[in-house]
Structure formats: C-alpha cells, structure tokens
C-alpha cells in the first residue's frame, strides 16, 4: 500500500537503442490500448541518450508534443530471468488502431507502476501459497496448499453435492485463465453455484439487447466517431474508457457530431459535448426508461422513424414468435415473455402500445426524471428528425452500467426499441452497443448446468442460482473466489460481510496445526457444523475476503508475467506478452486450476504452458464474437504456435470473428450485424464459419425484435427507494484516475495522493442546506437497505415485483453506513450524490438494496440512497498536498 507522499523524480533513464521492445496491451479498461515495453538490464549501467540515435525511440529530446516522453511514473525495475532490468512502458507511439497517435489515459499511462518491485509499494504482492493457522496466514508449498484444497473440495462435493462448491470468479482476466476456470467449475465439477465478479448469478447483463438481437460489442471504435448523433447512456467515456473518447468520439465531436449524454453527473466528456452542440440529459437515477420512451414517442408522433430500415429489418408477428432458435420453452426470452409484457407483433403494435402509456408523455417524463422537457425534445430531433433534403442523421446509441444497472430489463428493452426506430444497429456509423467496462477475456470451458439450479418456481423456467442468497443461506460449504472482492462488489455489502464472518472465522473450527490430516479434519468439522471454507486466488491479499476470511490463499501471476490472449471492446484480439518474472512462486490462474483439478482427479488439464491452453480454447470461440479459430488454423499451416502468430500481429491484433482466405491470409471483422457487408460470393471455405451475426442480427430470422418496456415492472421499487425526508440518491461509478477496486492504484503514490479516501460529490445547493463544505468528513447512512431473503418467491406475475416480494415476507431490512470526503460541486444534479463504486473500506454498494431485477436476475447497483451528515473535517480540507475539490467539468 502506498502513502500519499508522491515526490516526482526529476529525471528518467531512457531505453538505449538496443533495448528489447515487447508489445502488449493495457491491462485495464475495455479500450485495450496498445503498449510497448522497453526492457534492458540494470547490469552495465547502460542508459539511452537524448539524441535520436542514442535511444530506443529514435527521437531527439526534448521530444515534440505526443512524442515518446518518459514520465517518471512510466519507469520501473523488474526481474527478468532472475536479473534486474529496467522497464519503460509507453503507449505504442506507432499504433495503427485503438490508441492512435500513441495516446493513453493516466491509468494505462502509468502501468509500469503495476509491476512487482519489492522496493516499491507493490512489495505486498502475494508471493507464496498460504494457509491460515491460528488465525494467521502462513506460507506453505504449492503441493501442500493444493492438497488441502483438493481434499476439501472432494469432501464437500461428495457429502453436500456439487452446488455446495461455489466458484465466484472474474470474467475477463485473460482467455487462458477463464477457460481453465470455467472448464473446472462448469464441466468438471459441474456446479450451478457459479457466477462472475459483477453479478450474483450467471445471467446476461443486457437482457433487452439480447431480446432485440444486438450483440453487446458489435460496433467498431470508428463507428462511435462516425456517427452524426451519438446518444450515450449511463457513462462518460472520457472518465472510464478514455481513449475511446479522446481518439474517437472527441474527433467525431470536432467533426460536427452531436453527442447526447444521459446521466446525472457532468464530467469533462459531458461538458465537452455540451460546449460543442451536444446535450446533457441530467436524468434522476432510475428514470432513464421514461426519458428514452418519451424520446421514442416524440419520434413516432412526428413520423421521424427510419421507415425503410424498420420495413427491412424489424420482425413482424411471425418473425417475433420464431424465438431465438433455441426451442420456445427454454429461452430466457420465452421465460420473460410468458407474461406477454414485452413481445410485440412488430413496429405498429409497439408504437400503439407506446402511445397508449401516459407515463411516456413528455410532461410526465420531464417531471419524474427531472430533465427539462425542451432538452428531451431536442434530443429526439437530433436523433431522428430528417433534414430538409429528406436525409437522416446517422445515429448511434451507446449504453453502459449507469444505465443498464439502474433498471436492468426495462432500460435495455427501451433503448433497444429506440435504437431500432432511429435505424441504429447495422450500418457504419449507425450502431448500438455497450461502451464496456473490463476487457473481454472470457471463453467458456463448459456450459452452465441450469438444470441443477434449485431456483425454480411453479410454471417458470429455472433461474441461474443466485450465489449471494445461496451463500447467505449457508448452502455454500466451500467458496473458491478468484480475482474479485465478491463482498464489496455486490450489494448490501456490509450485511454480507457480517454473514461471511459468521460462516468462516466466526465458526469454532479453526486450524490450529500444520499437520495435513489435522487441518483437513478441522475444516471438515467446520463445514459439517454449517460453516464454510474459503479459498482465495488473487494477486494481492484482498480485504476482507482474503485477509479476513480465507483459509487458503493461492498467489496468482498476472499481466506481464505470462503470455495471455484477450479481446477489447471492438473484438480486437491481441497477445499480452510476458516480459518479467512473476513474484515469488506466484502462478497464472490456469496453472493453479489445472493442478487443483488434477489433484481432485479430473482429466483434461495436462497443459504445459499458456499456449497449450490457448490452442485448446480456440475452437470454443467458434461462432462467438471473438471467434479466432482460423488464426490457429493459419498458425498450424505456417508451423507456428497460436501465441507466436498473435505475437507477430503486435498491437494490431485482429478483430474477431476471423476469416481465413484460401491463400492462408486472415481477415477480421470490423463490425457485427453489418448489413452493408458483402461476404465472399463462394461462401465459407474449408473450416471457416460464416456466422449469421456478421451480416444479420442475433435472432431466428436475423431481423431485430422490437419489444415493449413497461415502467410498471420497476416503478414500485423506484417509488419505494426514492429518497424520503432528508435522504438523497447516492449513486456510484468510476473516476478516471482510479481503476476498479484500486488494487493497483492504492499502490501508486500519485493516485493515492489524488484520491486518498473515498469521496462523495454533492450538489452545491444540497450541501449548503446541510452545512457541508468540500473537505468535510461525512457519514452516508441508509437505515432501510432492503435484501431478498430467498430467491424471488412467487407464482403469479404480480408476485414478481417489489410489492409482491414485500407481501410474501421475502424482504428483510438492514442498515449501512459509509464515510467519505465531501466534494461540493456544481457538476452533479441536485438531489443526487455520486461516489467511487469500489473502495474496499468505504463501499458505496452497501447503500443500495440487494434486490435482483425480477426478470433478469441482475442487481440494480446504481439505485443507492443515503442521508449525509458532517462528522468533522478531513485532513485534506485545509492542507494542500492531497486531493482537489475543483469541479471536473472544466473544458475550455
């Protein structure tokens, strides 16, 4: 961990002309900028000079703007083959794609600080497996730790069934790892007690997109630039997917694009759009659906919809009924539409429904959402009003978590319909998709065993098991947690933390011996008494899951410490190369899983290296958006390994799905659902696949489904959650300078200096009423955090509502309190507060209800509320070293 005393170095060593140059991509956000690592030995004291021929960049110093300057934060010293080496890590100044002009954000720009260096704050990386003995984590050997985990795994599965073994894992940290983890959890163990880091159960994040037939990541980055009108819902890409903004959207805006932002907070990207002819729809949390449907209604009332597009590309009654080709009884779509609340007979039917809903009138939408009616009207015009010459604006729609984690099903259904009627989705510059959060590193090594989920209600389809309620109820006897905080990233976090404690450290059976048999005996007694064993696999000791609750710790090797594959938000797949030694005996997750699986007696885990895993998983990408099976075929033809073939592609990589021509050359896919794309006339050759999604949408007919989005499925929860008395909305999300839980940033002195504690933005008026000033230490409290006790209970459709669950007695209440430093600002909507979403000790998610979306099974994380009270002054109020209380919306 780092202290906030950042003292910048006054000079940096430049890489000499003969330094090794290794390509990789950034480890952090979805954009996945290309990077170059310059590496040279410390031994010999060689450093590059300021003349172009004396350094590896071939540039004279001082360099020109955008040049290969090395900021002190871009240098580190690592071990490579056991010898100290300098590394300088810069965004690829020759990048052709993604981060053109060699751009990077602050997050990725300082990624050299991520590398393990025992003389820097990364010194607390996990370097050895550990077992908790007498309450303390003690280093042991891999063999010993894996043995105990395997014995306990077998015991729990034999005695309590596969669903007693829970796996909670990241979904993104490289394909080789996710493939190994899912092969182990879903195929070998075959547990339904499985989910990813950002959801309580293994379900689709954007149900509306799925129903409409849109892939989350169909668009190319250039589409976001080339749109003439761009509606961005629930995120400011400048803050969270920076280079997507600075290299693509910002250039679009400079070229005349009108960018419309819908979110309650104004950060630089929003302010920049407003400055340049765009709009800020300052929506109250949870009311997006009303604004979206009000825009749609204005468009329909004026006849501005893209009629040609709708005629050709929207399903009619017969098309919609043909479902998703998965059998009509067992699709998520079918399960939702049994109520007839979503499905339509096509555009006219949908429009009739839309116009009949009084809540979607402009007046009502403006009133409830708090967005000025004139702005909503203007947004409709910008998106769809034909020009005098009859031509239409090219309109695109981007969504992200502020939007789809507010009213998950409703918002994603509504935006899909709006996208369809403005003609977004199937043409260059006219696209619809997610902006993205993490990069896309998931490949499934097994299918989810839905038939084993006990969460089944009469007349309904089985739901994926909700791992939070399942664990809270004590059914998880062994929890295998991989690369996620689990607790703070879920909702009602403080209540969860208390229950985890009870099941682990609060249980009387604690290890008090280093004897293998005694340890196993103790842990068996723990699970037999209703307790839980926790195995935690991560790069740092995470609080509390690793630090307080885990019995066994597996240290993981990560970015730069192994060769890995991953895709970005435009499906571009690159090799993230190993360039230094992992700390201690830390191992990549695929290796840990493989060795654990073998000890448990599972077969199919005999990989020698990560390339072996990659070559096995390639065929499981077939038909997916990142299908790169043909890269493997091409590599074979050329006598290369798959990783080697990707290494040659450097930071360019290739966009999935990948096609191989007869001569063995490869062709990527710029965008999915590209209705303008001409495929080769003679069709796919050899083992190539032409997936329908290349040129059509993800539905049975290949056309879009236009669906209804009733407000009533969510409105009772929204009314109930809505701030009462002195409460305010307290929503959350990222801040530009900090990535995720801050696992790396808390070890970067400069970032710790900038953001030493969690903070809360509060509007100037709200603060004044409460006597709060910037720099005050405040308490955010919620004394009515609702949680579902059990999976959603009910039979009738009316049961599937917050009111229904209250009536069934399935909701319990708890309290939550989180401290923060107040930032009084004009840049957040009155009535709304905003926090960083994932500070380990000050978790904003504690303030939102642990209540899943009835239809999708996702949480609506952004729906937090709190009372705010001043408890004193933070040390930052009257000192100058740390933090800044200046607004984040200055753009001129």
């Amino acid at each position: 961990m780092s202290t906030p005393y950042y003292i910048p170095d006054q000079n940096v060593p430049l890489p000499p002309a003969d330094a090794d140059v290794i390509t990789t991509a950034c480890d952090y956000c979805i954009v996945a900028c290309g990077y170059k690592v310059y590496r040279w030995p410390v031994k010999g004291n060689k450093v590059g000079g300021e003349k172009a021929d004396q350094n590896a960049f071939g540039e004279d110093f001082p360099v020109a703007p955008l040049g290969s300057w090395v900021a002190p934060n871009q240098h580190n010293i690592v071990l490579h083959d056991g010898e100290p080496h300098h590394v300088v890590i810069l965004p690829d100044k020759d990048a052709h794609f993604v981060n053109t002009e060699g751009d990077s954000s602050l997050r990725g720009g300082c990624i050299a600080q991520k590398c393990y260096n025992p003389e820097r704050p990364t010194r607390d990386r996990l370097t050895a497996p550990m077992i908790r003995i007498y309450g303390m984590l003690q280093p042991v050997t891999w063999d010993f730790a894996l043995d105990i985990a395997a014995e306990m795994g077998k015991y729990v599965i034999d005695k309590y069934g596969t669903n007693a073994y829970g796996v909670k894992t990241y979904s993104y940290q490289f394909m080789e790892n996710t493939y190994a983890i899912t092969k182990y959890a879903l195929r070998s163990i075959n547990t339904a007690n499985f989910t990813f880091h950002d959801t309580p159960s293994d379900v689709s994040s954007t149900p509306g997109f799925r129903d409409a037939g849109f892939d989350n990541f169909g668009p190319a980055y250039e589409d976001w630039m080339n749109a003439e009108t761009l509606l961005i819902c629930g995120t400011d890409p400048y803050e969270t997917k920076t280079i997507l903004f600075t290299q693509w959207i910002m250039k679009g805006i400079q070229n005349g694009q009108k960018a419309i932002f819908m979110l309650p907070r104004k950060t630089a990207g929003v302010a920049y759009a407003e400055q340049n002819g765009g709009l800020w729809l300052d929506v109250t949390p949870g009311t997006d659906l009303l604004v979206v449907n009000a825009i749609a209604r204005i468009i329909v009332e004026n006849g501005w919809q893209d009629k040609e597009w709708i005629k050709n590309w929207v399903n009619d009654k017969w098309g919609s009924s043909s479902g998703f080709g998965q059998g009509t009884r067992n699709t998520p779509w079918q399960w939702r539409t049994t109520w007839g609340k979503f499905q339509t007979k096509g555009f006219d039917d949908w429009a009739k429904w839309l116009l009949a809903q009084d809540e979607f009138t402009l007046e009502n939408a403006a009133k409830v959402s708090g967005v000025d009616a004139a702005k909503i009207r203007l947004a409709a015009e910008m998106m769809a009003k034909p020009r005098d010459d009859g031509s239409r604006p090219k309109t695109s729609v981007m969504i992200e978590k502020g939007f789809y984690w507010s009213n998950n099903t409703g918002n994603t259904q509504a935006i899909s319909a709006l996208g369809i009627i403005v003609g977004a989705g199937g043409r260059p510059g006219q696209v619809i998709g997610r902006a993205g959060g993490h990069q896309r590193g998931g490949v499934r090594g097994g299918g989810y065993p839905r038939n084993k989920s006990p969460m089944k209600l009469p007349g309904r389809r089985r739901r994926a098991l909700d791992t939070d309620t399942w664990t809270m109820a004590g059914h998880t006897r062994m929890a295998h947690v991989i690369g996620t905080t689990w607790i703070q990233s879920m909702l009602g976090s403080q209540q969860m933390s208390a229950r985890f404690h009870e099941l682990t450290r609060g249980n009387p059976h604690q290890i008090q011996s280093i004897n293998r048999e005694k340890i196993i005996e103790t842990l068996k007694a723990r699970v037999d008494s209703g307790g839980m064993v926790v195995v935690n696999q991560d790069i740092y000791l995470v609080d509390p899951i690793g630090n307080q609750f885990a019995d066994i710790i597996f240290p993981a090797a990560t970015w730069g410490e192994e060769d890995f594959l991953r895709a970005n938000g435009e499906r571009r797949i690159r090799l993230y190369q190993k360039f230094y030694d992992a700390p201690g005996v830390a191992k990549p997750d695929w290796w840990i899983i493989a060795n654990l699986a073998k000890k448990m007696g599972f077969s199919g885990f005999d990989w020698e290296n990560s390339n072996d895993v990659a070559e096995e998983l390639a065929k499981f990408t077939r038909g997916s958006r990142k299908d790169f099976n043909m890269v493997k075929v091409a590599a074979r033809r050329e006598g290369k390994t798959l990783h080697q073939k990707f290494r040659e592609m450097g930071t360019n990589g290739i966009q999935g799905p990948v096609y191989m021509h007869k001569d063995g050359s490869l062709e990527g896919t710029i965008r999915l659902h590209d209705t303008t794309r001409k495929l080769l006339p003679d069709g796919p050759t050899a083992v190539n696949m032409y997936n329908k999604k290349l040129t059509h949408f993800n539905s049975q007919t290949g056309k879009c489904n236009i669906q209804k989005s009733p407000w009533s499925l969510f409105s009772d929860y929204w009314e109930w959650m809505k701030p009462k008395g002195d409460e305010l909305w307290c929503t959350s999300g990222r801040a530009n300078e900090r990535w995720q839980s801050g696992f790396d940033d808390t070890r970067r002195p400069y970032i710790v200096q900038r953001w030493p504690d969690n903070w809360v933005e509060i509007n100037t008026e709200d603060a004044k009423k409460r006597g709060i000033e910037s720099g005050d230490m405040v308490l955010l409290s919620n004394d009515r955090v609702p949680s579902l006790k059990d999976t959603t209970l009910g039979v009738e459709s009316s049961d599937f509502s917050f009111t229904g669950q209250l009536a069934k007695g399935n909701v319990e209440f708890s309290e939550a309190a989180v401290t923060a430093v107040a930032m009084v600002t004009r840049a957040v909507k009155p009535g709304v507060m905003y926090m960083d979403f994932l500070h380990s000790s000050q978790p904003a998610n504690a303030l939102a209800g642990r209540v899943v979306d009835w239809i999708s099974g996702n949480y609506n994380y952004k729906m937090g509320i709190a009372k705010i009270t001043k408890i004193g002054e933070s040390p930052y109020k009257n000192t100058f070293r740390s933090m800044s209380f200046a607004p984040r919306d200055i753009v001129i």
Partner: protein
Amino acid sequence: MNMSQDVKTQSGMTRKQAAKAVGHKCLVSRRNFLIGAGVTTTIMITLNPGTPQAREVPAQISEYPRKFVAKLSDLKLNEPFDFNYPDEGEYSENMIVRMGVTAGGGIGPDQDVVAFNYACTHQGGSLYDSYKADTKSLGACPLHLSTYDLTRHGILISGQAYQSLPQILLELEGDDIYATGIFGLIFGRKENLHG
C-alpha cells in the same frame, strides 16, 4: 490481404503531423532577466551499492538558476504573467499568478503567488492562456482536456496527465520574486536542465 483493416483517423494525420499541428503557440509576453546561470559540477556517486557491480562514476549534478521573475507589487489579481525558466529551451514557458487564495507552495503575505510550467504532463499540449480565476486552475488542455489545481501543487483535477504540473519554486526578496527550482519533471525532457 491485410490481416486487419487499417482505420484512418478522422484527421488522417500521423502522430507526428498531429504533434506539429498542436505545437506551442508563441508566448506574447516575455521578460527575461537572467540573474544566475546554470552551474554544472562533477562529483562521484556509487551505482549499485552493495552489489558486485558497484562502482564509482562521475555524476552530473546541475543546479537550477536563480532567476528574477517579477515584482510582487506588479502582479495583478488573477492575471497570469509569463516567463521562461529554467532556460530558454523547449517547454521552458511558465506562468506566475497571484490567485487571492492561499495555495500550496504559495509566496507573498497571503501565500497566494504560485508559478507553474505550461506544458501538459500528459503529452505536452500547451496550457497557455488557460488560467481560470474561478477554479484557480490551468486547463483544459486542448489535446485531451486535462485540468490542474494550482492551489494544490498543480495536482491533476481531471484528465490524463501522468503527474502534477511542474511547480516553479519561488522566493521572495523584498518585492522581488525569484525562481529557484522546479518540482516535477517538465514534459518532453529527460532532465529539467536539459532543454
């Protein structure tokens, strides 16, 4: 056939062309009264102490010049005044301003006079003429919108910079303000004293 599709950027410019297009605008007001010149001395330091590779090498230790910048009484509230430091080379343009609020590293009776370098510590965009009196900030950088808080040692408010804006260390002697050093590496340079 290309392995990937080569996407042209909107501007169609290469990085170097783009860099030229955003190069520093000329500064309008310069008043250079160079009092002291940079002094270079040679001393010996030990590299890799305690290892077999340890050896004594000559190190170049350069000293910052002490340079007259302005008279305190000439500084008007919230009106930045530009000067070059530590030399006349690339990225030597700085501003000094009396902000009317106490600031980290501020001098004068109200500790409200501070000076900062104009080159954005992200990728060298010019922050010239971007001082904001209401927020006591520099920026937004025209390239990627970074902003800096001048009351807090030039810390990044929002944006992409890899570190705070270099702060020029100031000393007050009577009514005369001198620049005596820099805290933080200036963009584009390998060392501050290598313009």
